[in-house]
């Protein structure tokens, strides 16, 4: 690992959970009272409190899933404080006050200047004079009727929309972590694209106000009405630290007739140190519902961080002729563990899905692809194509593929291809003999391996992702 990254991950990082009780922090532990407290603090309507309580009551009866191919110590859910009033982060006056190591990492990743400032916690307005970028974008979106705000704000400003769609794709009792999230989520994003509107720009959490304190139980809801389309970007390539070890987010997407949602993620959360200490546990439920005919939902993810990744962005293809896509690169190094993949549930006629998964394992890490393709009896003419490729770097890592295929309609066509390859000494020697060092060689091989996924990412994101993979693998070969 490069010294830059090493220094960065060695920054003071609080293992475990926050211990100091401050003024506006709920006592540790989860109970109906905690949930009432959260809902009360946020001044929520009765229906939302009911939704939370219902989720909590179901969660109590559920067991933590044991099937993922990951190992971690048992989580004590009563040791977590589920609410703290959002505290503004300390804002720095200028880029000069930012840790130079952090700036060097940004430089290496090619993070745009304005984003660097934001990520480093510098007030953007300080740098860009008077006009706040976020405000400008928000005004532009409002012109075409797009709503893009925090979910708390949406609960108050657009209650009918939130009530209609929240929990409609991921029911409150869907799974252990989704139930927990539904009970205690504190904030997240809401995005609504009205009928016929093509969102004029990629929506990024960066442009949303109040993104800093979304907390460990983030909730996102995106709705595209008939004929609407949107491309949504989550995360960024810069390393992200959090004092909360457990993260359990829920993302719901709804696409009505002819709507199109593209959701791209680059995740680079703290992965623990090279000995596997610390790091974030990321248990995420992401699901899209292609509710209308001819709708399309496309997930693209580049997962490079977290100590544990448990994540299966899925598509429920209910509308006839609807399309689901999943493009994924999951990279694990050191002692990271990833169990990630997708579910494609074909309900409507002539529904189509594509799965392209690229797993890269280095160090002592373990990387599993887990995917389900289910063709319901109603899904006449459904088609799926899956491609799962694994690449191993070194001798001590592991890669697994767990594909589940359930076909209940004789007219369906399902294809699955899988491959495993290894970056070999001979390949690196071949590059070296042509003047190219090991790191550049690995970067080129990896980028070739991930090409099919990267080309799905928005341009700047793809460039950053390419560099990110190189950075994450530094020192793992040669």
């Amino acid at each position, binding site marked *: 690992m490069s010294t830059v990254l090493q220094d960065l991950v060695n920054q003071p990082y609080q293992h475990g959970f926050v211990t100091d009780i401050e003024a506006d922090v709920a006592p540790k532990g989860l109970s109906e009272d905690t949930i009432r407290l959260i809902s009360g603090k946020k001044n929520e309507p009765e229906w939302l409190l009911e939704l939370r309580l219902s989720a909590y009551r179901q969660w109590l009866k559920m067991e933590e899933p044991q099937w993922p191919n990951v190992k971690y110590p048992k989580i004590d859910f009563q040791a977590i404080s589920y609410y703290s009033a959002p505290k503004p982060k300390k804002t720095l006056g200028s880029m000069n006050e930012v840790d130079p190591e952090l700036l060097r990492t940004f430089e290496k990743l090619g993070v745009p200047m304005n984003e660097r400032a934001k990520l480093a916690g510098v007030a953007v307005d300080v740098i860009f004079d008077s006009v706040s970028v976020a405000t400008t974008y928000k005004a532009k979106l409002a012109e075409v009727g797009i709503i893009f705000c925090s979910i708390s704000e949406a609960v108050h400003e657009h209650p009918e929309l939130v009530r209609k769609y929240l929990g409609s794709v991921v029911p409150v009792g869907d799974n252990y972590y989704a139930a927990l999230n539904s009970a205690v989520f504190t904030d997240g994003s809401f995005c609504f694209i009205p009928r016929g509107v093509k969102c004029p720009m990629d929506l990024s959490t960066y442009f949303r106000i109040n993104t800093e304190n979304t907390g460990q139980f983030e909730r996102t809801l995106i709705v595209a009405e008939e004929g609407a389309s949107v491309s949504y970007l989550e995360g960024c390539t810069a390393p992200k630290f959090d004092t909360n070890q457990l993260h359990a987010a829920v993302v719901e997407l709804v696409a009505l007739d002819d709507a199109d949602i593209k959701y791209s993620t680059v995740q680079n959360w703290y992965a623990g140190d090279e000995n596997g200490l610390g790091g974030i546990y990321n248990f995420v439920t992401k699901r899209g519902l292609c509710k209308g005919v001819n709708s399309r939902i496309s997930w693209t993810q580049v997962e490079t961080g977290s100590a544990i990744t448990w994540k299966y962005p899925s598509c429920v293809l209910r509308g006839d002729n609807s399309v689901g896509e999943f493009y994924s690169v999951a990279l694990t190094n050191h002692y990271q563990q990833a169990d990630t993949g997708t579910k494609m549930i074909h309900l409507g006629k002539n529904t189509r899905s594509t799965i392209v998964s690229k797993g890269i394992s280095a160090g002592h890490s373990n990387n599993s692809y887990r995917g389900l393709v289910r063709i319901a009896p109603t899904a006449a003419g459904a088609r799926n194509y899956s491609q799962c490729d694994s690449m191993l770097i070194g001798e001590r890592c592991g890669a697994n593929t767990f594909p589940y295929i359930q076909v209940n309609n004789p007219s369906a066509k399902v294809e699955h291809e899988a491959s495993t390859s290894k970056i070999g000494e001979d*390949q690196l020697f071949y590059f070296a003999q042509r003047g190219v060092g090991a790191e550049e060689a690995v970067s080129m091989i990896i980028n070739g391996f991930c090409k099919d996924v990267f080309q799905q990412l928005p341009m700047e994101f793809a460039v950053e992702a390419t560099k990110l993979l190189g950075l994450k693998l530094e020192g793992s070969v040669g």
Partner: protein
Amino acid sequence: MIYQDSKTLLAVRGLHATVNGIEILKGLDLTVKSGEVHAIMGPNGSGKSTFAKVLAGHPAYAVSGGAVVFEGGNLFELKPEARARAGVFLGFQYPIEIPGVANSQFLRLAYNTVQAGRGKDELDPLEFDDFVREKMKLLEMNPDFLDRSVNEGFSGGEKKRNEILQMALLEPKLAILDETDSGLDIDALRIVAGGVNQLANKDNAIVLVTHYQRLLNYIVPDYVHVMDAGRIVKTGGKELALELEARGYDWVGAEVKANAGVNA
């Protein structure tokens, strides 16, 4: 070609090398001057390919004795990539496949890295495209090669042409071509050999590792060396290759043993 005043490019003295703890090279000596073409022949297992890989710095081979001076400096102080930038080129006997990486990308990265290492200008993708297409004509290569993954699914002949294309791009001082003739049909052999001949000049040198005299009809060597049991045991002119073709290698071994007996 032998030039009177040319300088020594490569001096190998008493080279010993092992792979997996087994000694393969046992005191090899060789001097190569710029402008010259050398052919190294010898039976299977005599250490020809090992010698080629040791010069290029393959990590599986360990140098256990002796010295190699390249252009006045200790070659073994350089990492494999630095040797390549300094002008040592190995044409692989079995070129490596790199799935997913377009040949054009690979060739440009190699070219620009070596150019940068020599303090020369790099080329952007468009400039490089013109440049590489021109070089490909030399080897009668179809431009489709540029879009395919490096060596993946290439026929034996295509792989070898791709090797010589890289030699043409990187303009090495010392090109070691390890059995470049194996797997080539007559037409491909003529084309590849023609390419090598056009690249040879008075400032560089070529070392051909080969089993067969056939290649030497096309690329005429100044010296022919015979390797046996990890050493060069006999050196002659191009006519030695013809003699080897006619008589095999056994007589060389016998001659070496006889001489050893005399010396003892």
